[in-house]
């Protein structure tokens, strides 16, 4: 070791972790296409257009008005 060099610190016992408000990609998501509505997405995902409110509730931070969704938005699709 050259004079003045500091010995390396030992970080072998460092413990770490992580978490997120975002779901993992394993969870289903859906990217809104032109011509989509929440009812249409619910019909495709659940087979029941009346389930649109479930998607709306899971994405309230993205949807100000359930009648106004935009192509390219990525919605979380909750389990049926």
């Amino acid at each position, binding site marked *: 070791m050259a004079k003045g060099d*500091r010995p*390396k*610190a*030992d*970080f072998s*016992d*460092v*413990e*770490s*972790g*992580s*978490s*997120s*408000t*975002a*779901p*993992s*990609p394993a*969870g289903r*998501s859906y*990217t*809104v*296409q*032109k*011509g*989509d*509505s*929440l*009812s*249409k997405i*619910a019909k495709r995902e659940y087979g029941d257009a009346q389930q*649109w*409110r479930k998607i*709306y509730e899971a*994405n309230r*931070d*993205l949807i100000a008005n*359930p*009648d*106004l*969704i*935009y*192509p*390219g*938005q*990525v*919605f*979380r699709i909750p389990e049926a």
Partner: protein
Amino acid sequence: MIRRYPAVLLLAATILAAPGCKKSSDAGTPATATETATAQASITEIQLGRHLSADKRVSDATTKFSPRDTIYAVALTQGSSPNATVTARWTYEDGGQVVKEDSRSIAASGTEATEFHISKPSGWPKGKYRVTLTLNGSTESKDFEVK
């Protein structure tokens, strides 16, 4: 027959006005709104501290830590990415030594908070550290110190 028209029109109007049935391709949709919705997720802020609140934000922001502290770094992100990877790289003394590197895959949608934390039971060596968070090619760093 003529008397039935108002009822038919009322029924049609009710169906069209049902929530969740309006199509996304409505004329007049502002282009800027669409562009915002399709923006790829990126890091907008890094928070550092010793504790997290329930919404995974740092509740006591600081860049000064003690050797026994658990250190939290939160990446606040904005935008949509159905499959993105956030990476945290912790380094010591001007990046000369990597302390830890972790990553987490997320389906970002809107504003999200992704936290990484490190602790060292034997105590952190005193000195200057840096955490660098990366998402979709955007990189943000923050320096901190253990005294």
